[in-house]
């Protein structure tokens, strides 16, 4: 069942990326881990047209943006582009523990939820809840 759920995971922190990927894979999800927004958008667009599109995306916020500069809104920019490509697509954003306003901004732009990094155990439950909704 979970193997059928395809997750796009984007974070430039390779250790975090691999760690979350392992947790999701262990929980049974099909995960594509990407460490930059440009590659992530390309992959998303490519698979959107295929017969195995992504079911959900998990994005970090603070990453190099499409111009390659570190930007605290890079994740938000990617979020907007994903939703342009596929309106209503479920996205979870990863935030630091106290970035309340940025997290709310993500939700205003259409993210389904935001998640504080470093507590990935709860992330599995959140992904499941969103997929089932």
């Amino acid at each position, binding site marked *: 069942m979970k193997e059928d759920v395809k997750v796009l995971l984007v974070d430039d922190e390779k250790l975090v990326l691999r760690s979350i990927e*392992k947790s999701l894979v262990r929980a049974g999800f099909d995960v594509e881990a990407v460490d930059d927004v440009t590659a992530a958008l390309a992959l998303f667009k490519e698979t959107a047209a295929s017969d195995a599109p992504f079911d959900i995306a998990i994005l970090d916020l603070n990453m190099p943006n499409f111009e390659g500069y570190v930007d605290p809104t890079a994740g938000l920019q990617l979020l907007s582009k994903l939703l342009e490509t596929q309106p209503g697509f479920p996205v979870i954003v990863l935030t630091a523990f106290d970035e309340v306003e940025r997290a709310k901004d993500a939700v205003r732009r259409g993210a389904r939820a935001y998640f504080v990094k470093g507590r990935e*155990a709860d992330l599995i439950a959140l992904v499941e809840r969103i997929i089932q909704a």
Partner: protein
Amino acid sequence: MDESKLAERRAALLHAGALVSRSITSILDLDTLLHRTVDIICIAFDFYYAGVFLLDETGEWAVLRAGRGEAGAALVAEGHKLQVGGRSMIGAATGRNKALIALDVGNEPVHFKNQYLPLTRSEMALPLSAGDRVIGALTVQSVEEAAFSEDDITVLQGMADQLAVAIQNARLYAENMRLLEQATRRARLLMAAADVGKNVTSILDLDELLHKTVDIICDAYGFYYAGVFLLDETAEWAVLRAGRGEAGAAMVAEGHKLRVGGQSMIGSAIAQRHARIALDVGEEAVFFKNPHLPMTRSEMALPLVVGEEVIGAVTVQSEQEAAFSDEDISSLQAMADQLAVALHNAHLLRALEAAHAELVRTKTFEAVATATTEAIHWIGNKALPITVSVQRLREDVASLSGVEAEIVESMQEDLTLIEASARLIILVKEHLIGPAREYIPAPAMIEDVVKDTAQVMGIAPEAIHFTVAPNLPLAVADTTQLSRAFRYVLQNALEATEDLLTPRIDVEVDLVEEKEMRYVVTRIGDNGPGVNDADLDKIWASFYTTRGAKHAGLGLPACLQILRQLDGKVRARRRPEGGMVFELYVPAYIGQATHGPADLPAGKRFLLVDDDDVWSRFVEQTLTEGQNTVTHVVDAAAVEDFAAFDIIVVDDVLATTDSLTVLQQIARAGAAAKTVVVASSVRVERMMDLLRFGVRDVLPKPYTPAGLVERLRA
């Protein structure tokens, strides 16, 4: 006496008179003139005695200024004087401005019998006049009876008139010399003042300036001693900052100081803002006899004045009696004024340097804090996966088969150690990042924020005591950040009192004014063991802790950083009764609420779920004034029909229940979409929990009508 003898005698007298006149007119020193005169008269005329009297300043007495021989010297030494207009020959001559002759002195009624001149048988007294004014008289005496005739008067009076002119000349000369000397002295003093000014104004180092100044003054004026006093911070004491020589060094080392307005010359010169002179210091009532300066016989104290401000005083002292005159004040004060300006400049420079040093310290602190924050953020991010990896390893270890239980146990223990270390790193990151992020200041009720914080921390109501001053203004703060600062201090208080039988935390909210700023101050005190004086300064440094390894020592530094970000301040002190008190100063809100109740929704039915506290009373009152109906409940258990309300407002922090429970009830009743949750401190995870119920929004608590309008429109 026949005609020829008479003519001969007159010729001899005229000759003698001319000789006397010639001899005396060129003498410019008065004393020399007078002494030479009496000698020449006696020699030329062959008189027994001659003496010159001059009137004193009062004009009432004729004082003997020169007399012939030993008799004359003895009389001068005695201060021999005769009353003008009195019974003596001199008295009568000066009184009437007329020459008198006594041919047999025993028969002359106005003659004063003089024991030093027992042989006198004839005397002539000749007035000395300058114009119409009598300036003295000349006495000439002979051992012969009837030695003088009326005719002699003309000749001798001519000589006396010449003498009077010579006396006037000598006096004018003396006066001219005095004026010249005075002008020279004044010029010298002004030159010395200019010297001091030139030398001191180029010295900008205060200590160097003070010490060089006293040397420069002493060298320029030739004074025995000079010292510079500056007022202390209280302006009640003048403290000796530099003094000439060993005496000065000893007094500075002793901390020599004099009370402003006290009995000393310095004290009174500063208080009265004008120079004081003591010419013989033994006579001067206000002089402070100084054992270090036993030779001082004259002292001048000059105030150091810059604009309206007296900054101290300078003392100059001389070994000579009457070394200073009133006329010296102006030149010495000119010097003191230059000195005051130089001192003021040096003071300003020092203040500027201190301000610059403070700026450098602050900037350095900020740079270090920023660098530390960046570094720890980076490290913290790297540590984030550790805990999750540990979690996965735990599962893997648990599922291992065929491994000895002992080894599994050891592996589990290692994983616990790794996880604990990773959590500490993440905790450090969150403490240090916390204050820097998303700072949104707004007017806030400090009482509400600190009470909410204590409640969220689960501090038992009996362990914490609140005292809130009435009519407190709002303060300007980001309440999420401020709540974090309160949490750190309250956590400290909790830990400080955890081993006590009767732990007690006192929270006092008050208004204070400091340096024209108004602050709402929150004093959080505990009855714990307190911090040693030696450690008191260190508690604000990152990673410093007095509580052992389980503490990262970051709470108070983070608190300091938060309060600085709020333009406030934080102080720690020991309580006299034991324990610590932390004072958190937040600037009072001075603005006005721009939106009144008129901008609020009107005619709406509100359900307010909150404790009965200062915030709920504010909301209730504001909404009611705006023609709304407000139903205020402390939990939602008794609410039967959520549909009866247009808007539901829930405080995240509730005393009797958890807001999540309330939201569950609301969501179940299908009223979540019209529900707004407010919180004095908002965290992402909590917000996520709250939003999960589908509420309209989770917002920072508003504390002004304007803020309430904004939240309800959101």
